């Protein structure tokens, strides 16, 4: 065989050895999504079989040779109702079931560990809270809910992990989230599934699922010295956010301690819950969510901080549960950021790019 045609040989041997027909189920949601999938396959098979049986059966029974004269029939309300109501019922079941799965996939549990993902032409940058940075790869432990907060720096991308049955669009200018809990260690595909330009098909990577112990080892091995929040802290200082947001009584900006998750009243009278999206929005476009009681003096940082930088700031503000850290930040303001950066390694340079 090999002599005749190497290509054919390669093809046949691959067919015999490596011919997946079904993707691995490696997350808790995968079996649930698949159950619905199989239910739909079943429904479809039934529906299709009925159609095919009718066509083939009637074709045989009423072929002109066997049945030379057609009998005219106007229709039948009963039948009409049957094939309206049965498919409708089945479709509605599918709808409800699908909605349940959908809400499960897009509603992260409260205790999920948050990982940030930034998509850009044509790579995925992943930022762990511990300061680990990855490109085109994502390491996660089994048995823990992981929430991804995704954003794009340029065009639409889509973060897809077939083995987990989850996928979420990375949208420029907006955080989206998805979550999963991996169940089986292994390496799975990561695809960008939204067409994003020339190298769309190269925007792939690996999802590495590890046992919790391996994961801990990996975390230690690849840390860059500073956590994401620390990067944020540094940025907070270097962008002089703390000139206004400090805990002094005469501060020009509101106190940010514990602001995350709290309810804010905006000057428009609306109340909002402070979440990632809100934080990002106020940093980039403060005037749009101006807090009641404050002047809209906060400058806009649109175009001055990279998405990774914003993520670092958001992570920092999220973790401000006491003003201890803020005080610390105040003390480091004096140190120019470049020196800081050198002092703690390369990590901050990566995340805290400040565009001129």
């Amino acid at each position, binding site marked *: 065989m090999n002599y005749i045609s190497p290509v054919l040989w390669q093809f046949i041997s691959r067919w015999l050895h490596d011919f997946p027909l079904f993707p691995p189920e490696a997350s808790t949601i995968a079996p649930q999504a698949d159950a619905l999938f199989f239910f*739909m396959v079943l429904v479809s098979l039934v529906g299709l079989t009925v159609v095919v049986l009718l066509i083939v059966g*009637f074709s045989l029974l009423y072929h*002109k040779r066997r049945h030379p004269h057609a009998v005219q*029939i106007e229709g039948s309300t009963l039948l*009409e109702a049957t094939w309206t109501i049965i498919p409708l019922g089945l479709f509605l079941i599918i709808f409800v079931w699908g909605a349940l799965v959908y809400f499960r996939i897009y509603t992260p549990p409260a205790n999920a560990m948050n990982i940030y993902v930034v998509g850009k032409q044509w790579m995925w940058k992943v930022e762990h809270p511990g300061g680990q940075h990855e490109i085109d790869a994502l390491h996660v432990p089994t048995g823990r809910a992981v929430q991804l907060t995704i954003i794009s720096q340029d065009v639409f991308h889509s973060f897809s992990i077939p083995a987990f049955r989850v996928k979420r669009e990375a949208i420029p200018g907006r955080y989206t989230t998805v979550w999963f809990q991996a169940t089986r260690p292994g390496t799975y595909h990561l695809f960008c599934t939204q067409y994003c330009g020339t190298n769309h098909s190269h925007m792939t990577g690996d999802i590495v699922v590890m046992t919790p112990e391996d994961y801990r080892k990996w975390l230690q091995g690849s840390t860059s010295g500073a956590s994401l929040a620390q990067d944020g802290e540094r940025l907070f200082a270097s962008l002089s956010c703390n000139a206004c947001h400090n805990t002094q009584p005469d501060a020009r900006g509101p106190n940010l301690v514990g602001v995350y998750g709290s309810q804010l009243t905006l000057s428009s009278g609306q109340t909002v819950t402070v979440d990632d999206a809100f934080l990002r929005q106020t940093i980039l476009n403060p005037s749009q969510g101006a807090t009641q009681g404050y002047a809209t003096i906060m400058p806009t940082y649109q175009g001055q901080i990279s998405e990774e930088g914003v993520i670092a700031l958001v992570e920092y503000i999220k973790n401000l549960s006491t003003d201890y850290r803020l005080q610390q930040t105040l003390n480091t303001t004096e140190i120019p950021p470049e020196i800081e950066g050198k002092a703690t390694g390369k990590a901050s340079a990566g995340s805290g790019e400040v565009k001129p």
Partner: protein
Amino acid sequence: MSTATIVSLPDQSTARIPKVNFLTKENGLLSWLLTGDHKRIATLYLISITFFFFIGGALAALIRLQLLTPGAELMATDTYDKVFSMHGLIMVFFFLVPSVPATIGNFVIPIMVGAKDLALPKINLLSWYLYVIAGIMMIYTMSVGGVDTGWTFTTPLSTHYLNTHVVSAGLAVFVAGFSSIFTGLNFIVTIHKMRCPGMTWFRLPLFVWSNYAASVLMVLGTPVLAITLVLVVLERTLGIGVFDPAKGGDPLLFQHLFWFYSHPAVYIMILPGFGVISEVVSTFSRKRVFGYTAVAFSSVAIAVFGFFVWAHHMFIMGISNYSALVFSLLTMLVAVPSAIKIYNWAFTLYKGSITFETPMLYALGFMGLFTIGGLTGVFLGSTGTDIHLTETYFVVAHFHFVMVGGMLMSFLSGIHFWWPKWTGRMYPEKISQFAAVVTYIGFNLTFFPQFILGMLGMPRRYASYPPEFQVLNVFSTAGATVLGVGYLLPLLYLTWSLKYGAIAGENPWQATGLEWQIQSPPLTENFAETPIMDHEAYDYDWLERKQASEVASV
């Protein structure tokens, strides 16, 4: 006449094609280019869309060749991107949208309603010219380097990140859109205002009903696409940011506007096909369509509901979860009328007297393939599974099943059905039946593996893919070659039949539509005198009586 066929051709030794018909009435290129005759315009359309179909098909062949191997061996990724974008754009806007309405519909609708022409012949011609202008712009786009946005023009990719010819492609689609608006508008007016005496709404053939529904979609949906493309073009040329997040615009707004057209557009593409199937299934089982009113109203229901499901293309794109819910529910509702139609056609066979000429073979193929395609649409309409399946080959397989397995099949069915009327000649029956079967096999081989690929997670619009997907892709490519043969055959034998085919006579299929009661090819004014509709649609007894009385009087 054998019992296995209903074909009744006139005695070939004496039969002649009528000397005066719409083809011979006037001669010369100008008489075609300035014609107001709907049948000539339909012919012009037929030629132009066939041309674009084969361009699109050649691009499809390139896609499949590239995907034969996992790496990007044949073309660079950016070339591949252009190839599938042009394939999608050409197939959708230059082939499938005008396919049945602008050719077959143009040809038969006026005759079916008993009119001498469409209400607005000049607008009809204008619509063809717009199509040609758009086509030239598309060819221009292609020849200067193409466009690689995908057929969906996704912003901000199309507006700010690509340096290919988005503007000319966008304008081409814009112009093509107006061509389709004018066709639709013309149909609506004709169906409302030009029906002959006695032709009540419920005596109209179902082909007219479904084209009516499609026309409503064209008239109301297409302008939204037009303005969206204008905004895209302005954004690209002037750099303004309604769709650009960097300037505060919203790319999702683009998605809303685009899909507001493009979802109804898929029904523009399928509804006329439904009409063909109704005609063909009825004719070849010698029976009135089962549940005429249900089939008629389901077309209208699809047209109305079809407007309110567009966001099912955006489930993972960050629309609010609640509106995902609403759109998913409406998607389920819009799927039901299609089911109604399928079962009504199946029951039309019941107690019929069925024969299997080529149009019927295509129609039966349609019913199977469209059911699969439609049901996989339901997979995608269900929010939970859509997360996994969206943007993968599952979607590609879904829409090829409905568009190629559905609409293209019904287009071919219709072409074979009305060909004798159109040209006055028959094609070789055995070869055409063979071609229909080849198409069916090739089709399944091409696109069924793609469902599995999609389930495995292979993303669409990928120039290269992980090696474990190769086996299925090889099947798919192999199928595409078979499919290509299946499409080339009709081109060959239909052309052949123009000169050598048997004379078809007035009514080779013994069908009941008004178009079958006049000479083939028809006169320019269709009817020698205004017809009067004095029977229901698909009244085979009426036809028998009529033929009996004709024989008696001769």
